[in-house]
């Protein structure tokens, strides 16, 4: 069982969206994250840099043909932090007696 630990860095809405997307993927393309999280290029770049500084994600920059391509993935530390954060949120909801119904 994952230990619960609330993570302020992850909990910010835009970063939570990014980390949630990356948690279901081995890696995800910059444009896919941007469009899925409804962020601008600059807002996503800023949030990715914050997560990278915390060693929660790894950013890969490369080329497909002549086009630059950026992708990101969760590091093991980032995945562990996300799972602990999830456990903390679930604990809070469980303590209140509420339930999360799957959509």
């Amino acid at each position, binding site marked *: 069982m994952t230990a619960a630990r*609330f993570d*302020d860095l992850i*909990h910010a*809405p835009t970063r*939570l*969206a990014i980390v*949630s*997307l990356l*948690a*279901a*993927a*081995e*890696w*995800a*393309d910059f*444009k*896919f994250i941007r469009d*899925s*999280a409804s962020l601008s290029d600059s807002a996503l770049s800023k949030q990715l840099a914050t997560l990278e500084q915390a060693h929660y994600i790894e950013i890969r920059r490369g080329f497909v043909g002549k086009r630059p391509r950026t992708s990101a993935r969760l590091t093991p530390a980032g*995945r562990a932090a*996300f*799972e602990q954060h*999830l456990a*903390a*949120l*679930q604990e*809070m*909801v469980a*303590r*209140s007696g*509420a339930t*999360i119904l*799957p*959509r």
Partner: protein
Amino acid sequence: MTDELHPAEAAQALADIQKHQQQVIDRATVPTWYWWAVGALMVVLAVGVDNRTPIALGVTVSVFVAGLLLATGLAVRGQFRDARLRNGLLDGRGVVAILGFVALIVGCTLGLAFGLRAAGVSYPATLACAAGGLGMGLGGPVLMRTLRRIMLGNRAGSAR
């Protein structure tokens, strides 16, 4: 921050997490048209088999191979570009579902074809593949829904 967070906000955050993970899983779903395309290509191939002339076989095999490559390329192109699903989302149950579906379609199609041929029906392979193609078109989306359910059950934070 933890102390300040209201349970309703935590519940909303969990719902958002689920929504974003679903976006990645849904991106990996094979579209419905793909199954119908593969079903139609099976029929094309079977026409060549029933026709039994080298030219018919050559043409239908070429159409089948080219069509399958094109359809598969179009179906998975966006997925490989956008994101790769996390290993482990599709567990043994998913593999069993995929193999079971393929075995069911191939087994029923072959069985029907041999049965029709033994009964002396004309164009047994074409008729059997038409039935198999129908099964592919109708069953493919069901397989996708099953795989989606398995992957959602294996995502982080799901109630396993």
